[in-house]
């Protein structure tokens, strides 16, 4: 398979993506053989919808990591933004107001992260780890253990609605994928993000405004967390203080399984989508096959490693 792929002369990133897609399809094919329900239209649509939540969050994170940074606060951002949006929606009855507040909150947190990293020069891990705690604290204090539930149907459409038979979040996912890929591959700003992550000094010397690009990606990450929080809220129809706790690690997992390097400079949004799908398909498969809870963490770990191993092994052999 490796010589075949090399003969087709794909660029390393494309080869990396192709190998991951092949692994995903193999997992899917395996599940289709053992479970008659896997290929059902409903199941596939559910899979896409479940993956879209992780993807929306991971898309902004991909940009941050591409630029050589890290954002650990996204899960906490989702929680705070969702709780604020929920409160405003309950108080005013207006989905629009709720969405505006959720997005604004996400962007604001992103800006804070970006400023901490670029102006105050706090290392990204520490800056976003710190904001993670602050956001959690704010959210817990604000919610005081309460849950807010029950939102207007117009808002719930965002998370639970269908358009042309396909769940709405799936459209959001592909929309973000398309816009994001166009931005990264075909605009100067996008390419500058890659350059900054790949070699910051060289980029700065070439005239790339590295600090501004860094600030931009953190704001985009925060903004996507804000968007994800709205979809999350619409899907679950409730807001509570500990929402999204598991999401951060899932999002990081999706980005890294998708082939984006933690050091920055290489990776694609399409890869992140594949990563999100791998995580979703694994859970789906385990539920469909009624695998006991005792085995699920083990199997998840094995599949995560396997999905990256094909690419890692091929790099080793070709001397990357």
């Amino acid at each position, binding site marked *: 398979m490796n010589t075949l792929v090399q003969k087709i002369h794909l660029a390393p990133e494309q080869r990396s993506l192709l190998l991951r897609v092949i692994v995903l399809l193999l997992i899917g094919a395996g599940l289709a053989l053992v479970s008659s329900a896997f290929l059902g239209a409903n199941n596939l649509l559910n899979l896409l919808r479940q993956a879209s939540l992780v993807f929306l969050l991971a898309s902004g994170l991909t940009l941050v990591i591409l630029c050589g940074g890290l954002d650990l606060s996204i899960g906490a951002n989702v929680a705070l933004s969702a709780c604020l949006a929920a409160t405003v929606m309950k108080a005013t009855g207006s989905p629009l107001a709720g969405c505006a507040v959720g997005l604004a909150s996400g962007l604001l947190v992103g800006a804070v992260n970006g400023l901490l990293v670029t102006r105050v020069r706090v290392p990204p891990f520490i800056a976003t780890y710190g904001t993670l705690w602050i956001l959690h604290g704010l959210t817990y204090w604000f919610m005081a253990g309460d*849950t807010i539930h029950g939102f207007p149907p117009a808002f719930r459409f965002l998370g639970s609605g269908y358009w042309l038979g396909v769940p709405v979040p799936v459209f959001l996912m592909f929309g973000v994928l398309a816009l994001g890929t166009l931005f990264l591959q075909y605009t100067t700003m996008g390419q500058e993000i890659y350059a900054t992550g790949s070699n910051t000094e060289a980029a700065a010397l070439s005239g790339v405004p590295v600090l501004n690009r860094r600030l931009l990606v953190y704001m985009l990450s925060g903004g996507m967390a804000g968007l994800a929080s709205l979809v999350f809220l619409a899907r679950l129809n409730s807001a509570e203080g500990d929402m999204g706790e598991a999401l951060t690690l899932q999002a990081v997992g999706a980005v890294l399984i998708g082939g984006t390097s933690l050091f920055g400079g290489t990776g694609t949004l399409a890869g992140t989508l594949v990563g999100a799908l791998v995580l979703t398909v694994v859970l789906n498969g385990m539920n469909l096959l009624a695998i006991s809870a005792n085995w699920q963490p083990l199997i998840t770990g094995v599949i995560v490693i396997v999905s990256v191993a094909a690419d890692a092994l091929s790099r080793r052999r070709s001397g990357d």
Partner: protein
Amino acid sequence: MKLKILAGIAALILAPAAIAQSGERIAVFTKNQTNPFFQVLRMGADSAAKQMGATTTHLIPTKPDSIPEQMSLIDDVVIKKPSAIVFTPVDVKAMVPGIQKLNAAGIPVVNVNDRAEGGKFVAFVGSSDHALGVATGRYLLQALGGKGSVIIIEGVKGSGASAERVRGFQDALKEFPQVKLLASQPGNFQRLQALQVMENLMQTHAQIDGVLAANDSMASGVIEALEGANRKSQVIGINGTKEAIDAIKAGKLLATGDYNGYLQGCVSTMAAIRELRKLPVPKEVIFPPTVVHKGNYQPLDVPLESRSCPKWEDVVKEAAKS
């Protein structure tokens, strides 16, 4: 004259201190700030303390369920020496050394909610996860007429509460041999995960008559999944949260097992204060399992601020019956 003024000022300064001394100071340890159940428990504790003329301080890890944080809170408390402690361990095994520190410091401790596997306690106050699982499970299976198929949504693997509740569900299933258990999958006590697990399970099972969820958050997730797919199942949860009561009112949730968070807070604090006042305290107060459903939710459907703690004698009599 000056002496009189000085004495007057001294009295004014010392008086508040004197008043504070007469009220016992109870330190209440709970697992986290996010679970509504503990919020309710804390309110019960505050209410009981107020009724009995004591004060409460709340010690909660900032990172939910964090063992090291609860350990360091214990160290703080050993120095500050409250009159008594009401304690929910974040982990029933790992916190034992911490409890032994409290015992060594001579502070009386009442164990609430999760039974710690070591250490000395004045009393244990709680509900039985297993009994709640059996009672709530039985309620649903009876509502199904003893036939059909069900699934279980478990909690967090490794959580004692989850294991006991699921064991209770399975024991209830033994009483209804004609009901088929289609699957038992973990939802990790998380709303989103339960929603997605339910979505996945609905793909393989065309007919699901009942869902036994190990807590109310997961039950809500299951209900969202069902509504999204336009399917109907009877769903039960455990905890007795406000959201569950609202869902019962709306006809979406069949029943919830009342974990008595408020009562646990009340009774454990009352027990701690009684111990300090040398009044008799039973070694165990275990609340009988109550299933809350359409017919009996009214007493629980009041805002928490207007609830007040029951009389000690009544509670102990009820608990002794179970």
